[in-house]
């Protein structure tokens, strides 16, 4: 069932009226072509598959451009003995990078910041009351880091949770935008990320129109935050469509 990676472009076209000078390098001009030929408001082709690992209760593989992530979900299984009793379920998230995921060979260690952000992003979407006294483990492994890693991890993790049959309010989709001077560039690659002025990442449940995680760095005006949020929310809802169709495809394929 090999299908072509589906692309999702945004309805809004890039605003060509923004012709103010920018600050740095290649991104100094208002108009520049992105290294992969996308326009500013176009996301990378998303390729999603469930059932990437056999031993896990649920797993998913995501490939957004050069970023490749695999997520396995284990559980719900009994919480560790040392844990205190809890009437609701627990969620344990761990994000790690392989040693070969970055151009320079890395340490391949756990990413604490991403682990905690992933936990916060998923916590609000999972109905933890449905599995008291137990723990769900979410292990994400970044095979190749090609920019926008965290949004891809979150998206893939929510797909893996759905594959594992964990009750959720809605699928969680995540998209980030980078800010270059006056321009907003969606779904940045790592090369773009290295010289961005700021970034905004939104994680949301599109059907409920609820934001479960939001981080922002760099200096932003309110109007720009507004614009970026709209852009991200629009992209999230489109990404959720792709996730849904991936799940449907998996369900119809197995029956």
């Amino acid at each position, binding site marked *: 069932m090999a299908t072509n990676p589906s692309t999702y472009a945004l309805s809004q076209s890039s605003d060509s009226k923004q012709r103010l000078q920018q600050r740095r390098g290649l991104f100094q001009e208002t108009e520049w072509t992105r290294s992969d030929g996308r326009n500013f408001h176009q996301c990378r082709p998303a390729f999603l598959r469930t059932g990437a690992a056999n031993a896990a209760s649920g797993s998913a593989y995501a490939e957004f451009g050069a970023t490749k992530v695999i997520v396995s979900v284990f559980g719900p299984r009994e919480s560790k003995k040392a844990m205190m009793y809890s009437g609701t379920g627990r969620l344990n998230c761990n994000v790690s990078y392989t040693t070969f995921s970055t151009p320079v060979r890395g340490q391949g260690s756990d990413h604490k910041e991403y682990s905690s952000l992933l936990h916060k992003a998923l916590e*609000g979407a999972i109905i933890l009351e449905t599995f008291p006294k137990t723990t769900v483990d979410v292990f994400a492994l970044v095979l190749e880091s090609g920019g926008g890693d965290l949004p891809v991890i979150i998206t893939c993790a929510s797909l893996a949770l759905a594959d594992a049959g964990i009750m959720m309010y809605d699928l969680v989709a995540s998209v980030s935008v980078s800010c270059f001077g006056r321009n907003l560039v969606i779904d940045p690659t790592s090369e773009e990320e290295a010289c961005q*002025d700021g970034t905004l990442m939104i994680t*949301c449940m599109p059907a409920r129109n609820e*934001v479960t995680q939001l981080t*922002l760095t760099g*200096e932003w005006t309110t109007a720009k*935050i507004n614009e970026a949020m709209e852009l991200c929310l629009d992209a999230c809802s489109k990404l959720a469509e792709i996730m849904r169709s991936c799940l449907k495809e998996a369900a119809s394929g197995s029956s």
Partner: protein
Amino acid sequence: MDGQSLPRNPLAYPPASPRRSLPFSSSRPPLHSSLLPYPDEVFIFLAPTAHPLRCLALWFPAAQPSAAPTYSRQRVAPPLLPSGYCGLVSSLRRLGWRPAAYCSSPPSRLRISLSHRRALVGSATGKRMVGLSEGEKRFIRGGIAQDLRTDGRQRLHYRPISVETGVIPQANGSARVRLGATDVIVSIKAELGKPHPLQPDKGKVAIFIDCSPTAAPMFEGRGGEELSTELSFALQRCLLGGRSGAGAGIDLSSLLIVEGKVCWDLYIDGLVVSSDGNLLDALAAAIKVALSNAGIPKVTVNLGASPNGQPDVDVSDEEFLQFDTSGVPVVVTLTKVGKHYIVDATSEEESQMSSAVSISVNRHGHICGLTKRGGAGLDPSVILDMISVAKHVGEQLMSLLDSEIAAAEASAEDQ
């Protein structure tokens, strides 16, 4: 429950400012008892440690809210006795009694069984730091809905903030900030280092936060570690700006000495001495104060003096350069409890939060960083609303901090 159904707030402290009145002062007409959802109210208080009486129940008949309450025991010292409804409760709190339970209907006899008493005492001294009874939870949420919180503040009011500078003599700059019962110390040390090869024109800043178990038992082991990393990353996002350095509170290029060779490494270490909620705001404020207190030694560079190309750097012991802190933002955390959000939540209020958004605002009213904490989702419009509120509150906090910094520096010079 809407705002009307909780017309009384008897656990409130005396208000911080004399301008605000307590809910039961004469300025507010007393509500008719038929408006109250419950006819009577009973508060159960736990004694401070080593008190012969372990708990005390107070029954307030709804018909006469200002009348003397009935107590479970007679062994209450006379000066405690009623000067009105809130007077008693707040003086009890001041003497260290903890409200433990709240019932809306009076038990037939105001006697608490021994097992119930044990359960109450156990829950208060149990493992979790914030052990709240159902009554207290309802009380906190109800107070927030009415815009009168348990310590007499309004939703968008900070606790009194106190600032001290130069508390650590070994550091280049240091500050201690107290926000109610929250107490943090930040020290700043500058060391000579080498710039990162990818960013040869910039110095380096590292932020570490330590939540020591001396502040709260729950910080022991992994519990403290998790919170420490969360706080460190949130502060890094708020203070260090984007990857290109745009919007950074600390100008990294000002830390450079010789491009690609020598720069200052700035180590910002925060210590949580005592935790009563809103750590992030307190830490960010302390970092801002400590930076303004910091003196970076003046250096003279002798280029090409040594054969291996490493410049010879001479650090002065007497001359110090002040750090420009005008761009350092303040962090405002808005905690959502029920339908409303509050600033500067105490740990009791934080235990009731559904989610919290920490927003850092700089002098120009621009947002320099945003972190969402807490699991529950938020509507995008609520977030935008929060941002505009945070901008407004941040402006006030910024000017308050500025005057506190000036006052602290003046008092440091006097000594």
